[in-house]
């Protein structure tokens, strides 16, 4: 066998060895990929299984909530009127009236009345005395006049002077009843016909 033939054989063997090494390595890598894809498929399968009822449930929830919104909007507009409804909404949630009511598209064109800022003088007085805590907490006219938790002087000043100056010897209220300390004789004419006065 000539030297050239031996070299040829060696070259072919080298090529075959390279092919074997790289192809086996590639096969191992592809097996790892296959195993990873199996994990992916399992995870995606779980996701599909868990999300299967979501659409139906969410649609059901949205349907119920839509019915609730329709009910509340309709009731509010029916009871307060559309204009005052927008005023109430604006008073409770400033800026919300601009969005309007879903079932009343014309509500977006209404200029909401400032219902939340309109109080009578009596309401403001009570509020500043602390008797209406939610109003007194945000009274624009000034601080509350009375400490609702401890003070009572401002409230007592609303009553006549004889009551607020606390006199020491005020007549006690009479005690009535069968066991009252002071008993009176029973009149005989009680229950009888009324006496007629002599005619003039």
């Amino acid at each position, binding site marked *: 066998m*000539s030297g*050239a033939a031996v070299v040829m054989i060696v070259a072919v063997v080298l*090529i075959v060895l390279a092919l074997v090494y790289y192809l086996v390595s590639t096969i191992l890598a592809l097996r790892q990929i296959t195993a990873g894809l199996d994990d992916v498929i399992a995870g995606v399968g779980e996701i599909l299984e868990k999300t299967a009822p979501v659409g139906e449930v969410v649609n059901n929830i949205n349907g119920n909530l839509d019915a*609730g919104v329709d009910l509340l909007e309709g009731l509010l507009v029916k009871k307060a009127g559309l204009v005052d409804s927008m005023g109430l909404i604006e008073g409770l949630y400033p800026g919300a009236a601009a969005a309007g009511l879903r079932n009343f598209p014309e509500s977006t064109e209404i200029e909401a009345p400032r219902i939340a800022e309109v109080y009578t003088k009596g309401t403001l007085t009570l509020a500043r005395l602390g008797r209406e805590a939610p109003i007194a907490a945000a009274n624009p006219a000034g601080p509350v006049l009375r400490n609702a938790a401890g003070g009572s002087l401002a409230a007592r000043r609303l009553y006549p002077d004889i009551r607020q100056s606390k006199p020491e010897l005020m007549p006690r209220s009479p005690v009535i009843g069968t066991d009252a300390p002071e008993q009176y004789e029973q009149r005989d004419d009680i229950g009888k016909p009324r006496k007629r006065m002599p005619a003039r």
Partner: protein
Amino acid sequence: MTLWWIGDVVLLVVILPVVILLLHRVLSAARSIVPSVRSIAATAAAGSKDLDAVPLLLTTQEQVAQTVAGVADYGGSLDVIVDDAS
């Protein structure tokens, strides 16, 4: 004989390096896919775990239905009690 030697040289200098280069590129591409597949598998597992709370939607659905039913009852009562604006 000269052709034999020329064939040997071509085989060793040209064909063998080209074969090795091509096989190396195939192996590199296959190996580069492995970490991507592993990260996708981890992400799918995490996404599946995040969806463990989905069955609670059934409870939410029931609660919403009950709440809306209560609101409807209150609304009906208010409709009777409170006078209409018009």
